[in-house]
């Protein structure tokens, strides 16, 4: 986490105290110092600038995060949520109940499949597209770039609606095209064997553009002199990619892997619009499960499920940092 986002030089933020001031300054003197010194003016301006954001952040981010944790440890079934403090603590009961619920375990498994299969596929497809665009072609690069990126900017709901019509067993385009080759297409979204794989492929289709754009930027900043040198030393295209480009792309790959992974662990919109989690829960995701619990008024269980996903996100992110971080 830290190495990715922090840019603060070491010690910044705790070395700005005026060196003459002792540790036991009185509050009045500190206030005076704050008023008069240049640093004091700076600090005051900083807090004025930070205040509106922090007020909104506290109310709509920090408070809900803590509140949600408390909710997940209580029994809200009988509570009136307009007086949210009037609840009884039940420890980890909600979590225990979650993992005893076969439906939730099933939803977690679907989510895991979605991430484990979908994430590598997305990264590979995006990387392949970036390499092809970077090295392979000269003309129409902008057309390809916009075309590949188009699904990323589109509302998932609109995409889900379109794919639903494309995958219609009778009137859909997909089965018609398969029919030209003599293949009798399945009922895709109504078939327990195909519903989840179809959604994974849709996610790959939708997200590879992001990976491609970032990788393309990375590839284009690879010094060409390095490539030239490797070529003179007799490295083939394959070797040049793995030995020269790929190591330089590793940080960009890490970044896309982390952000895409976070998104995939929360997959919701597609099953909500296309299958409602069916058939037979085969596309039910953990987020979808939590949403259903929320809809049924089980706020405590929904919060607990949210925290389970949070823990999974942290775990996946840590794992990705371990695997993909620069070795130095």
């Amino acid at each position, binding site marked *: *986490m830290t190495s990715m986002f*922090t*840019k*603060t030089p070491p010690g*910044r*933020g*705790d070395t700005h105290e005026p060196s003459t001031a002792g540790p036991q300054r009185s509050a009045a003197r500190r206030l005076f110092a704050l008023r008069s010194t240049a*640093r004091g003016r*700076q600090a*005051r*301006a900083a807090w*004025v*600038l*930070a205040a509106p*954001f922090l007020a*909104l*952040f506290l109310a*709509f*981010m920090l408070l*809900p*995060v803590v*509140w*949600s944790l408390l909710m997940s440890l209580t029994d809200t079934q009988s509570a009136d949520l307009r007086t949210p403090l009037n609840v009884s603590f039940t420890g980890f009961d909600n979590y225990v109940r979650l993992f005893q619920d076969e439906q939730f375990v099933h939803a977690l498994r679907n989510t895991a499949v979605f991430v484990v299969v979908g994430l590598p596929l997305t990264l590979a497809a995006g990387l392949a597209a970036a390499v*092809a*665009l970077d*090295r*392979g*072609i000269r003309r129409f690069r902008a057309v*390809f*770039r*916009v075309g*590949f990126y188009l699904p990323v*900017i*589109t*509302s998932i*709901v*609109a995409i889900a609606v*379109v794919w639903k*019509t494309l995958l*219609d067993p009778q*009137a859909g385009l997909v089965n*018609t095209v398969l029919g030209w080759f003599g293949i009798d297409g399945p009922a895709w979204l109504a078939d327990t064997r195909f519903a989840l794989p179809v959604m994974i492929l849709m996610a790959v289709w939708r997200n590879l553009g*992001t990976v491609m754009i*970032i990788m393309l*930027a*990375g590839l284009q900043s690879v*010094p*060409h*002199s390095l490539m030239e040198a490797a070529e003179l030393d007799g490295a083939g295209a394959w070797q040049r990619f793995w030995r020269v480009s790929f190591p330089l792309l590793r*940080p*960009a790959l890490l970044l896309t892997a982390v952000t895409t992974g976070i998104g995939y662990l929360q997959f919701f919109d597609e099953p*909500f619009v296309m299958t409602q989690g069916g058939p037979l829960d085969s596309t039910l995701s953990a987020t979808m499960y*939590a*949403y259903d619990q*929320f809809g049924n008024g089980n706020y405590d269980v*929904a*919060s607990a499920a*949210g925290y389970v996903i*949070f823990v999974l*996100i942290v775990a996946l992110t840590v794992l990705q940092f371990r695997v993909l971080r620069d070795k130095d």
Partner: protein
Amino acid sequence: MSTLSTLRTAPSDADRALRRRHIRQTWGQPWLYVPLAGALLLMVAPFLWMLSGSFKPEADIRAVPPVLIPTAPTTANFHELFSRLDFTSMFANSVTVALAVTAGNLIFCSMLGYALAKLEFRGQRAVFMLVIGTLMVPGLVTFVPLYVLVANMNLTGSLLGLILPFLATPFGVFLMRQFISSLPDELIDAARVDGCRELAIFWKIILPLTKPALATLGIITFLGSWNNFLWPLVVAQNESQYTLPVGLALASGGQDFTRYGILLAGSVVVLLPVMIVFLLFQRQFVAGIATTGLK
């Protein structure tokens, strides 16, 4: 950190010349055009299908096998969409929410971004870590209490409930801070020496220089808000607050809307504004994605 520096390092001129010569000499790999064109077709086919479907008359929609080019193009689907589903007010809601959310993020995130990047104050590090740390929190963790909060504020019946929780987002702070950090400190020092007040420095010197980052953040926020689905779905209580994705999703789930023509027309309406925004600002958008690595 290494990510950002790698991506930000612009290739030198000599490098570019070498590269250009190399590509010209080898003429890329012509055979790659074929699989790439195939892939491109796979990427845009659903959009072409959407466009063609939205203009299809009833007979073409029911046709088996499906027809690709409408036999008698009609705008009936769009008419019905706007009359029966009240897409006009949904469209207005989407625009209002997206513009308000975008404005809020541009203002609040650039303010805090500047403070974190260029000013020194006690607790700076803690504020930064706190804000950035929440980038990993899934929406699901906050939405239950957020819902209770918004309900207690009696905002579930108004668009404000859709706007307020998204006015200030950690991602925006991250983006603005990264960009403002790259501006030279000397500018600010010189202004201070000239007696410019601290807040005036932000307003008169930093903000004008931050335009490219503001453009990127603006586009990303607008698109994100426009496509946001889960929160408006939960909070909007009646049709007068629906945004386009919510209206479209509920329509597609409804029993009387097995008619694809209307759904595809709805998808076109949802997509069109973001397409226009994207094509107009493509450059800034791609640059922003490439430098932050986030969408």
